């Protein structure tokens, strides 16, 4: 064991040369330099590769705006709704901060959906990036939990009834389900204890996400980014340093992202929300139809497509969890859909099907809509079921040896 150990080397103790002195004691500058500045990045990345850093920026924006909201928000069922109105009316710039946080949540999901779609299209989940992909799914799940609890905080009608419906899903767990739901609520219905704990969890989860993001980037930097050709890049000049090439490309991408984001913040802040959430929560009045936020709709559609509640809940959670095993379901050695004629078509079918699921999730669960949701749910899982077979029947186009 000890043969591999090199004792610490003596270093200069001249604090007048502060940069060197500090670096000898904590080499943070070279760490940042290696992982941001000099980090080797494939030179052929297209604009789909902008969404990773965009997601990071969206997360930081949520944390900063959220921090300022937390200074004025009151996590108490008697004060919560009014405190949001105080932020909107009386706090200097409160309306900007709240609109950014509200629209920011939606835009975070748009970015992450595109980011996941890019991984799916270019086979970024395949060996050796399975753990990187899995960590991404963990981030996605944490985001969903955070967003769900965040939507409860304004304590409007949709907050209350959305929370009631979704927490009730856990009651299907055999034997202990109903007790778990009561434990989660801190009472016999969604109430003040629920709101306080959701606030606490909503505040802390983003920092857990930051932690998993660091692991996600660690795993990325070990094998470097995948690229649109999906081939392993072996030559040194296939790579360019992250800075300045991708810093400037990401800054440009950020500008393109911020334009529609800003438009929503200043001109249509309520567009993606539900008017019912401007009605204070009332346990005695059930809204005509309880709809989750738009980014949950495809999964909500899967839940409602299946008439047996237990199976519906399983299908809903399964539809996300199945992504964890995707690297083993897809047996094809070729990563990029550019060289997989059948997979390419299947991918776009999957995307369209996912969008239809989102659309049908906002419709009432009756008549034709149920049938559509059932067909789309079957197609959703059918995509994953077809993947192992696909690798056998598909003839990939020849891969280039190098860029």
């Amino acid at each position, binding site marked *: 064991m000890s043969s591999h150990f090199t004792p610490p080397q003596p270093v200069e103790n001249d604090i007048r040369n502060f940069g060197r002195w500090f670096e000898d004691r904590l080499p943070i500058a070279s760490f940042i330099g290696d992982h941001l500045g000099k980090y080797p990045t494939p*030179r052929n990345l297209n604009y789909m590769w902008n969404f990773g850093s965009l997601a990071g920026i969206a997360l930081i924006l949520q944390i900063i705006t959220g921090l300022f909201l937390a200074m004025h928000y009151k996590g108490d069922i008697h004060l919560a709704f009014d405190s949001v109105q105080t932020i909107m009316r009386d706090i200097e710039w409160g309306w*900007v901060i709240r609109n950014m946080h509200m629209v920011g949540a939606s835009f975070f999901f748009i970015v992450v959906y595109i980011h996941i779609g890019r991984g799916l299209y270019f086979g970024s989940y395949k060996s050796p990036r399975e753990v990187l992909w899995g960590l991404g799914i963990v981030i996605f799940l944490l985001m969903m939990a955070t967003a769900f609890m965040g939507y409860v905080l304004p304590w409007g009608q949709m907050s209350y009834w959305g929370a009631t419906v979704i927490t009730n899903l856990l009651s299907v767990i055999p034997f202990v389900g109903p007790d778990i739901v009561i434990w989660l609520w801190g009472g016999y219905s969604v109430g003040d204890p629920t709101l306080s704990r959701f606030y606490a969890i909503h505040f802390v989860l983003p920092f857990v996400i930051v932690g998993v993001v660091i692991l996600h980037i660690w795993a990325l930097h070990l094998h470097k980014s995948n690229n649109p050709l999906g081939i392993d890049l072996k030559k040194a000049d296939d790579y360019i340093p992250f800075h300045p090439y991708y810093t400037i*490309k990401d800054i440009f991408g950020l500008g393109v992202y911020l*334009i529609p984001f800003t438009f929503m913040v200043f001109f249509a802040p309520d567009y993606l929300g539900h*008017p019912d959430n*401007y009605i204070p929560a009332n346990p005695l009045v059930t809204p005509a139809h309880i709809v989750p936020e738009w980014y949950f709709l495809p999964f909500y559609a899967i839940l409602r497509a299946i008439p047996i*509640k237990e199976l519906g809940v399983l299908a809903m959670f399964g539809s996300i969890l199945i992504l964890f095993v995707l690297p083993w379901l897809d047996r094809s050695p070729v990563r990029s859909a550019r060289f997989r004629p059948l997979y390419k078509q299947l991918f776009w079918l999957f995307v369209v099907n996912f969008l239809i699921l989102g659309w049908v999730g906002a419709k*009432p*669960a009756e008549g034709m809509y149920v049938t559509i949701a059932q067909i789309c749910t079957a197609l959703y899982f059918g995509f994953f079921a077809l993947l192992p077979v696909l690798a056998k029947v598909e003839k990939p186009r020849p891969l280039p040896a190098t860029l």
Partner: protein
Amino acid sequence: MIRMMMVGLALLAPAAWAGEGAALPHKDWGFEGVRATWDKDELYRGYTVATQVCMACHSFKYVSHRDLMRVGFTESEVQTLAKALNMDMNAKLKTGMDDATAKETFGKVPPDLSLMNRARPGGADYTYALMHGYSDDSATIVKYLPGGVPQGAYFNTYYPGHAIAMANPLSGPGLVTYHDGKEATVDQMAHDVSVFMQWTAEPERMDRQAWGVYVLIYLFIFTVLAYLTKRVIWKDVKKH
């Protein structure tokens, strides 16, 4: 336990889609579009209807007289208005009716109106349509409510379900006298109160839109410059 199961059922069983109100006609509002602005006279008239008609039963609990200074009222104007209602200018616009009396009279406390235009699809269009939606015409009523209007409710074309607990508040012209001598027709009052309620629902609206224009111009220039810089930096990278 039973409630949990009920909610579960409501979730999975085909939910009865509650009867929607009729489609709302769209009106051109001064607070919409490129030249959007709060019209002080419009708001003043709307305020008159709100305080003299609506506030008999409803409150605007997020708004005070002082807030009117944000849309061009002077302090002395606001003082005078508040004094006329025996109110402090910093007090919120609350109805004189206490909750107990309201419950006894109507069965429940009439909802606060500050946020109503944000809490209903259609916003001001909804409020305006609702003020015009009352009807005694039996042919119209039967068309929407074949079973007749329930006891204690009133027919309204635009109310979801068409049976509303509120009697027609703008039952005829001349309910108020406007400061600017404008004739207080039902349509005029409905229009003005809808604008006033839009203001109480989102007083930040004009600040928001004004800032939005500058932020977008800034970002547009930023993005163009970023793109040009990107092109310069990437010039030496081999095309594949």
